[in-house]
């Protein structure tokens, strides 16, 4: 194994040298090849080798021999998915460039493929989340009578599937596809509400601290310092322990506690940003003018400061949403987040996770937990791509 790796590396090293030399001879010493460092030539060869290996693995995944096809099944799906997403993003960008207002056309023209992929994904998630009740074939808690549990995804009866339930059923016979769709509503919806709450708390307090200053600023800032000194997931888990005792006594669902806890913990980060941005705005002349006009505190915060702080807050909103979403998913995965019977991706991964170990013999069975985990990952990746692009754009397109 190691011997083979060494041989392959030495072979590629030699090939890199040959590649550069051949390039120099064929192009008559064009600057590109003449000034090429050896490392770059090696990089090209390494990239080509990786590409060749992927193509080979893809053909293996389509092999007629079941054992080999099983082994490369996931790589095949990944490659197909990657190409499919790339094409979809490209088509979406082309559409965006030709349809719509002048402003949106201009926006799409300067957009990298990753950002258009992100926007497309967010739109699709939003549609699924809003219309979950219409799209999903079954209810999220519905145990369909007369249907077996643990139907394998894929819809092939020979492999233990059922065309009626293309994504299979879970351990007590609920339709996984429906639960995935409702998961968009629950997980994304709750994360979105939590982020909004965090922004409401953190933003208001941050702007207030920036505008009023003095002891309020001092007290709030020191409180935030202390809260930020405790790692957020740990603190959330500690508070959830306490909430899980209180929830049944007060008759309030645990999920409500979770939303409040995470919103408060995350609002500390929002507070920091809002206060910093606010302090830069408060010293402006127009704020002074508004104060001299005798405007009230509410007017100052919402009409003067907020509109001028939208851009950094919006980028922060995207990032914060990702953090909140991942925290909720992690809590649910650990079993203390969104509670059953609500369909939720984190819980689904925990419940179905064991199936990954059957991947070698029944690759389709192993897809169920990965679908739920992948649904989480896809959304956060998409939001991050969009935020990355927005930050890059607002930083003036420099390196």
């Amino acid at each position, binding site marked *: 194994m190691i011997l083979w790796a060494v041989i392959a590396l030495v072979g590629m090293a030699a090939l890199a040298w040959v590649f550069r030399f051949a390039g120099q001879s064929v192009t008559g010493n064009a600057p590109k090849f003449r000034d090429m460092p050896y*490392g770059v030539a090696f990089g090209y060869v390494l990239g080509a080798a990786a590409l060749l290996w992927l193509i080979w693995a893809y053909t293996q995944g389509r092999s007629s021999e079941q054992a080999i096809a099983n082994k490369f099944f996931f790589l095949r799906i990944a490659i197909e998915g990657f190409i499919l997403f790339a094409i979809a993003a490209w088509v979406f960008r082309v559409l965006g460039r030709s349809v719509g207002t002048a402003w949106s056309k201009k926006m799409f023209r300067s957009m990298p493929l990753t950002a258009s992929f992100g926007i497309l994904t967010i739109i699709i998630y939003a549609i699924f989340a809003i219309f979950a009740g219409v799209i999903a074939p079954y209810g999220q808690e519905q145990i369909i009578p007369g249907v077996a549990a643990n139907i394998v995804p894929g819809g092939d009866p020979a492999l233990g599937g059922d065309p009626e339930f293309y994504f299979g059923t879970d351990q007590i016979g609920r339709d996984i596809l429906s639960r995935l769709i409702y998961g968009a509503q629950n997980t994304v919806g709750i994360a979105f509400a939590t982020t909004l709450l965090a922004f409401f708390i953190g933003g208001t307090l941050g702007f207030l601290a920036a505008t009023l200053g003095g002891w309020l600023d001092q007290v709030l800032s020191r409180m935030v310092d202390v809260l930020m000194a405790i790692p957020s997931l740990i603190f959330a888990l500690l508070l959830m322990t306490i909430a899980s005792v209180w929830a049944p006594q007060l008759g309030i669902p645990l999920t409500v506690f979770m939303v409040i806890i995470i919103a408060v913990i995350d609002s500390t980060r929002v507070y920091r940003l809002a206060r910093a941005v606010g302090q830069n705005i408060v010293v402006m002349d127009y704020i002074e003018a508004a104060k001299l006009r005798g405007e009230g505190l509410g007017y100052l915060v919402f009409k003067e400061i907020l509109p001028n702080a939208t851009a950094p807050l919006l980028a922060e909103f995207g990032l914060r949403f990702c953090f909140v979403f991942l925290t909720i998913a992690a809590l649910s995965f650990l079993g203390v987040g969104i509670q059953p019977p609500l369909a939720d991706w984190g819980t689904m991964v925990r419940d179905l996770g064991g199936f990954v170990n059957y991947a070698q013999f029944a690759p389709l069975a192993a897809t169920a937990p990965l679908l739920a985990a992948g649904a989480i*990952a896809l959304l956060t*990746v998409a939001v991050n791509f969009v935020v990355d692009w927005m930050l890059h754009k607002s930083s003036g397109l420099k390196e």
Partner: protein
Amino acid sequence: MGNVLKIILQRLALGLLTLLIVSIVIFVAVNLLPGDFAQSILGQGATPEAVASIRADLGLDQPPVTRYFQWLGGVLQGDLGTSFAQANFASFTGTDSGATTVAQQIAPRFANTMFLAMVTAAIAVPFSIMLGVLAALYRNTVFDRATNIFTLSSISSPEFFLAYILILFLAVLNPIFPSLSNIFEGMAFSERLEKSMLPALTLTLVVTAHMMRMTRAAIINLLASPYIEMARLKGLSPMRVIVKHALPNALAPIINVIALNLAYLITGVVVVEVVFVYPGIGQLFVDSVKIRDIPVVQACCLIFATAFILLNLTADIMSILSNPRLRHPK
């Protein structure tokens, strides 16, 4: 140098103060629980005498302030209290089952978690600095963009997704590493390393992106400075310019971000430890949360917060030490 020492001492004092306040926050949070431990241990049908006896035993009949100082004093002497878990409860009723104190329960797991964090750091730090240097060297090429997309995707995926992907490819489809990290005492180092490889790789994927992007950004920031141009005009190769001239000056932000990511490692292990059943402090924490074993939860929380604050403090002090402008404030 006296000036630096003063700043560092100030930071240390501030860190200790923060830690003290954090301990109060944790204590108050735990005391928000309705009822008390004695009641919840004995259940509904307990006689008042039994409850009172256990309360006296645990010191629960004292006022909260006294209890806080008792707890704090115990913690400072390494006594984290006694676990309330069902198995350990036996000692209160007289049937001794080798009940352990919280400290005994936590110590070996803490060592395991530190081991995992160190293995991860040993892989992730060189790897991400190398990637960052390469990305800065070949900025705005296909390589740079591919690295960017890869790291951005890995940092924004949930840890358990990365963990299951690694299990799928490196444990199930190609049995290279074991998917369960059942580590026990007296295990040979190589075996231990092999068993903790998959969790370490998962954590590496999680922390690499941040460190790599910081390295890249710090180096690119420096590339416009005159002394780099001088080095270029001397005819040095791009690699040499970056590694010998730019990297040493970019070390301050890089060290800072490494310390911050190590702080994340100590606390971010929770989910990864659960997926791989790694017997670390994170798993103990989650288990205790589920059975509401308050002393353990309290102690774990305090340990995590301490590690977090210490590493943040280190990052702070490092960046002061490496930046002359902060070292000699006006």
